[in-house]
């Protein structure tokens, strides 16, 4: 009998892989986690951020010469030339993954998000319903430390309270809320994986205002927390290990996982079962990279859908100025949501949206705009104060339907530093989303008009850095990649977990649902 290195081999140490590793290690499984990147030390990352001249999402994180991730300043170096619209979801390959630079917002999906086709005749239904995932939402909220108002379910019925009381609205949120209340729009705090009191060894938020790209004190959840917990329970983490090939035996079982080290040496691990828990782009890339004679389209790809149905939330952010002082930018970067837009019969015709008040005031940007004009130099700081005090932002993340033409493929020309083909993106926003964008942008413009605000700009991007799809879940092996338990239809011991298994994405930020799916998979694997 073949010697196995572990019971469960997990590829990727982001929120899905970290929670799964922790659960299975606690269960007594022998677990190995492969992570392409390295460990992040928070104090080092914080200092690197302060010393960076270009303080973008990647600023706190050291470049890793053996692998590639999208560069915020030049995403095409990873994604290549675009076919369709520019589409630049950013993610991190590190121990803890992209939870190092997320806003920590953790709404659940709505029940209708799991049954979009049945309710509205668009998109597809999930093979599982809200009720089936609800207990795992509860567990995910406890694992991540979600702060929220237990009396307010945001449209997603709850069986248990949040573990932490809600993050209070900022003064600016409250002023906007008072004005919008007059036209029947309610504002409330998002649930967020950000400590409103010390929790699970992490401190309460101090309002540093740099949730992205980094919480300097760890008040906001990052998945390295559960990686460390898993290690204490015996899980082994191999960093700088770039998984690049899954090998299937004749019976379909994945019996080898190949990874490459920074020195280009190749290594092989064998496990009873393999879980691919990378981000949406890299999970599909790994399966496509694993093509061989028996699997010419890649592993788990008899449906031809690996890499397809790529989705993300289209986002817009409208900046405005009010006559009265708002003092936005104090506290966490995102606290408040506007309670409209996520569901309704309109979803038959155009996309839903999750509207939010951004509390992220970019001081440097304001300063730069002022310095651009010599006439403003003598009063530069007074002008800066005025702009910072009176500026607000309202935006929305807009639903995208699955479309098989939106996809990643392997690039035939461009290789990463280890000689592995990079992905190429094909992406075109659908009419459904574009119609939604117009509706919600106008709605926000009307709200700002109601507040006597002056719109400064409204910018749109095809990506909220919420890439999903590419290995979608379903009951039929012909039109999905994994089953309702996240098991690959084609391979009995291969599981995929992450945003990539989402058949549709609704309007919720994906991380909590990824966490819930991971905990649900853990229960399934414990039984097996």
């Amino acid at each position: 009998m073949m010697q196995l290195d572990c019971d469960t081999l997990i590829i990727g140490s982001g929120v899905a892989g970290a929670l799964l590793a922790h659960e299975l290690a606690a269960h007594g499984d022998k677990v190995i986690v492969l992570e392409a990147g390295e460990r992040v030390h928070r104090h080092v990352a914080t200092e690197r951020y302060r010393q960076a001249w270009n303080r973008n999402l990647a600023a706190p994180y050291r470049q890793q010469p053996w692998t590639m991730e999208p560069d915020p300043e030049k995403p095409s170096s990873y994604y290549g030339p675009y076919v369709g619209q520019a589409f630049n979801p950013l993610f991190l390959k590190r121990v803890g993954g992209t939870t190092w630079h997320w806003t920590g917002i953790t709404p659940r999906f709505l029940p209708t998000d799991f049954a979009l086709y049945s309710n509205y005749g668009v998109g597809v239904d999930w093979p599982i319903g809200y009720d089936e995932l609800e207990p795992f939402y509860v567990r995910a909220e406890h694992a991540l430390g979600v702060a929220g108002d237990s009396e307010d379910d945001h449209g997603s019925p709850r069986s248990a309270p949040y573990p932490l009381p809600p993050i209070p609205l900022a003064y600016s949120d409250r002023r906007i809320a008072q004005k919008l209340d007059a036209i029947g729009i309610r504002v409330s705090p998002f649930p967020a994986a950000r400590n409103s009191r010390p929790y699970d060894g992490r401190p309460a938020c101090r309002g540093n205002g740099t949730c992205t790209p980094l919480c300097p004190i760890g008040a906001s959840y990052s998945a390295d927390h559960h990686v460390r917990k898993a290690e204490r329970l015996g899980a082994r983490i191999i960093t700088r290990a770039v998984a690049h090939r899954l090998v299937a035996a004749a019976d379909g079982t994945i019996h080898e996982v190949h990874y490459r080290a920074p020195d280009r040496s190749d290594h092989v691990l064998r496990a009873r079962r393999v879980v691919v828990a990378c981000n949406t782009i890299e999970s599909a890339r790994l399966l496509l990279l694993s093509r061989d004679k028996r699997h010419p389209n890649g592993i788990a790809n008899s449906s031809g859908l690996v890499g397809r149905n790529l989705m993300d939330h289209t986002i817009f952010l409208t900046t405005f100025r009010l006559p009265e002082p708002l003092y936005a930018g104090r506290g966490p970067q995102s606290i408040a949501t506007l309670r409209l837009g996520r569901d309704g019969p309109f979803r038959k015709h155009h996309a839903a949206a999750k509207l939010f008040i951004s509390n992220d005031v970019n001081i440097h940007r304001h300063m730069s705009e002022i310095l651009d004009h010599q006439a403003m130099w003598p009063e530069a700081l007074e002008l800066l104060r005025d702009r910072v005090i009176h500026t607000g932002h309202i935006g929305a993340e807009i639903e995208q339907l699955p479309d098989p033409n939106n996809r990643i493929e392997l690039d035939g020309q461009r290789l990463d530093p280890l000689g592995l083909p990079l992905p190429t993106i094909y992406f075109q926003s659908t009419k459904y989303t574009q119609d939604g964008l117009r509706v919600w942008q106008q709605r926000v413009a009307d709200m700002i008009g109601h507040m006597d605000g002056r719109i400064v700009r409204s910018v749109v991007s095809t990506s909220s850095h919420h890439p999903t799809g590419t290995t979608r879940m379903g009951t039929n092996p012909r039109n999905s990649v994994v089953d309702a338990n996240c098991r690959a239809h084609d391979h009995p011991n291969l599981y995929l977990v992450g945003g990539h298994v989402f058949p549709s994405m609704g309007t919720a930020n994906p991380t909590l649902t990824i966490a819930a799916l991971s905990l649900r998979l853990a229960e399934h694997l414990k039984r097996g």
Partner: protein
Amino acid sequence: MRKRAAIHFDPTRRQMSKALALLFAGLTLLPKPTLAGGERKDHISLEQFRILSTYLTGQSALDPGMLRDIFAALIQEPWGKEHMQRLMHKLFPDYPQSMRPRTPLLVPRNLDDAERWFAGHILTTWMTGIYYHEIGNRTISYEHALMFEALKDIRPVPGMSTEPFGFWQEPPRPTASNR
């Protein structure tokens, strides 16, 4: 030279990058200035740079460490001393007898291209804490950048809060001089 991008999501960051690229593209394309009327041989001191910085920024209480570091960065440039002398002479021609500036910054024609570039360079470094340079931008100071200092009574320096949980619920109490 380019300035930093926004710290949040794409649209803002991209738009800012564009704006900054425009701003700094102009600066880098300027020819290295030469002195009209012959080079001044005057010594340029840290104290003179403090006077210059105070005038340009409008701030009298400049952080001494940052002052020293910006001065050191400038003086190491092949053109640094010459530019400081020239701008000092233009703005404070009667120094040290008088420290009254002669040339209001507000009037663009009072500074030629080279002087305007250099004044902008000093001002940008003080405001942002970042020394922008064609061969490599670097942070001179994070928390003492004037853009953060000027807002300290309103909000903590990003990433350096010592405030208690929830302070953001209430409006700040700006200092009397900043209301």
